[in-house]
């Protein structure tokens, strides 16, 4: 018991929670935005991988870190455009299109990476984001050291969650997005162009996913390696359901999830005799459990996964 309390009381744990949560916050918000407009984006896993790769590559070739994030966002937007073309214009199965985008984006990023950075013993590294100290905040007891261990993208993620919560529920644009996700025909009758809204949401959402991926290579680690996203994208898809498609709860869900993840990582070193694989499994099993608990209760956007064709029901 004292082990558990020691872990929970440690600054290191809470600093790790914010760090682990950051890519999940970006990814979950991105997926949430797509789904609020009625498009499931299973391209997320591949888009995060591509974002991680291209952001890293940009910095490796001399761009500064913010440009790296921006490059990742742009690349994510391009994949979003592809997914939107398949699912919105052509109205293809969102499940299969998303998987296609994931398979393509991840294999393309491995290809590009290997082409530009040939296989070597130790992977090349970059200088990642350094932690920033916010004047005033960093002097607070306990919270101060936790916050001053964070890098700028983490703050960006936290701000983004608040911004998206405001935008989705308090702005005309947010209303248009929600209407498109609930009932595109009604939205169109109100003068909203459902096609345009869906394109916009998927493109911006995919850009956010890619930024989440880029966090992995530009802040959490300093190099890129294949399969580094490790299912984080799929976990984000589960978190969107857990959050009932609400940005505030998505932030909470990502933090909660990151807490469990950071906790199990520390427990792993403190407890002997349990195979480490059991600990590594917990994030995935937790996601499945979260889905089971929330799936019934959550209110799904009614037009999710339904293609919209003008004049057709």
């Amino acid at each position, binding site marked *: 018991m004292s082990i558990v309390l020691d872990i929970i009381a440690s600054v290191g744990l809470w600093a790790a929670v914010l760090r682990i949560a950051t890519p999940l916050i970006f990814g979950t918000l991105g997926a949430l935005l797509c789904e609020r407009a009625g498009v499931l984006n*299973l391209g997320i896993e591949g888009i995060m991988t591509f974002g991680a790769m291209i952001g890293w590559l940009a910095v490796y070739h001399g761009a500064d870190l913010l440009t790296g994030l921006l490059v990742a966002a742009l690349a994510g937007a391009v994949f979003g455009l*592809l997914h939107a073309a*398949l699912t919105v214009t*052509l109205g*293809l*199965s969102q*499940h*299969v*299109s998303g*998987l*296609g*985008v994931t*398979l*393509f984006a*991840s*294999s*393309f990023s*491995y*290809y590009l990476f*290997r*082409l530009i950075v040939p296989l070597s013993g130790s992977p090349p590294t970059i200088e990642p984001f350094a932690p920033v100290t916010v004047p005033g905040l960093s002097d607070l007891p306990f919270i101060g050291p936790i916050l001053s261990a964070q890098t700028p993208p983490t703050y960006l993620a936290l701000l983004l969650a608040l911004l998206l919560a405001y935008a989705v529920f308090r702005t005309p644009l947010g209303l248009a997005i929600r209407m498109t996700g609930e009932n595109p025909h009604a939205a169109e009758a109100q003068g909203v162009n459902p096609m345009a809204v869906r394109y916009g949401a998927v493109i911006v959402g995919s850009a956010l996913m890619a930024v989440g991926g880029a966090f992995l290579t530009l802040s959490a680690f300093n190099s890129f390696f294949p399969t580094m996203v*490790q*299912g984080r994208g*799929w*976990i984000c*898809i*589960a978190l969107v*359901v857990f959050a009932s498609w609400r940005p505030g709860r998505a932030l909470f869900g990502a933090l909660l999830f990151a807490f469990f993840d950071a906790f199990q990582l520390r427990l792993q070193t403190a407890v002997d005799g349990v*195979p480490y*694989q*059991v600990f*590594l*499994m917990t994030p*995935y*099993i937790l*996601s*499945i459990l979260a*889905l*089971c608990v929330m*799936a*019934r209760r959550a209110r799904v956007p009614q037009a999710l996964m339904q293609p919209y*064709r*003008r004049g057709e029901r």
Partner: protein
Amino acid sequence: MRFERREHRPLALIVLTPLLAVAAALALSGLLIAAAGAPVLEAYWRILVGAFGSRLSATETLTRATPLMLTGLAAAVAFRARVWNIGGEGQFYLGAIATAAVGSQLLSGAPGYLSIPLLLISGALAGMILLIVPLWLRLRFSVDEVVTSLLLNFVAVLVVSMLIDGPLKDPLAFGWPQSQSVADAAMLPKLVARSRLHWGFGIAVVLAFVVHFVQSRTVFGMKSRAAGLSPDGAVFAGVPLARTLLLVACLSGGLAGLAGAVEVLGVKGYVTTDLSPGFGYSGIVVAMLAGLHPLGVVLAALFTATMFVGADGMSRALKIPTYIADVTVALSLITMLVAVFFAQYRIRR
């Protein structure tokens, strides 16, 4: 501009669709090869030679196609009934480790005619169980099985890793994480001597015909297709939806688990965590390229295996990363989706 459903679809169009899709995918990855500064046509020629140029390479391609056929069939039967089984990779691994476990612990002394069928069944059962979980969650809690079956892939690989690090660890593997081997008597006989090609290939092709028969000629096949075309309509027509979907899940998960079993009994004899270079995920592409048709799966698996096996030699000769094969296969999924769409719809102004 709008899309209008075609009233009539000529057979030629249906046959041409996957060919056009593959051609488009090859053209697009040709751009990537050209961007890398390599000659595109030579690259594709080398892929073809690498996959079929010699007796060894041809048998290697067929060996590689075997698990792809089975995971492709697994995805095809599931998608037909709109059971979105994306967990083929996990089912493959669980099938493989179940085979290795039963084969090395229980049936190590049994004669081949007894152990081979039993081991194939254990692999299939393990795959089944892994798909029944997400399907049950869908029926009970209305959880989308796409996400759950995907997440279970990671769990399954970790279970395998745990077992080959612990109870099933091969003490003679010099600390390398690898499971104990099944007995030599339990290995599938070779189809071609002095090659890796084994009878699993025959099993996969026969199963493609069996699945085709089941889908087109049996009541269960009709029910499963009805469940996919319109779940509400199927229920209205008296199809027991839950039971039908459960059977589909057993069939699909079983096929993917069998793929793992066949790979263990045919090629390696033991399990490592890199037994599958994404057979489960490629199986989805195979199924889509085949238009979810079981016999098409055989051809689509051959194409996919050709890319993967051929890319190895091409990569060494032209300094193009082997990942180009994965890119082409992924692209062909996307081009196939688009091609199928335009086979069904025409553009009207």
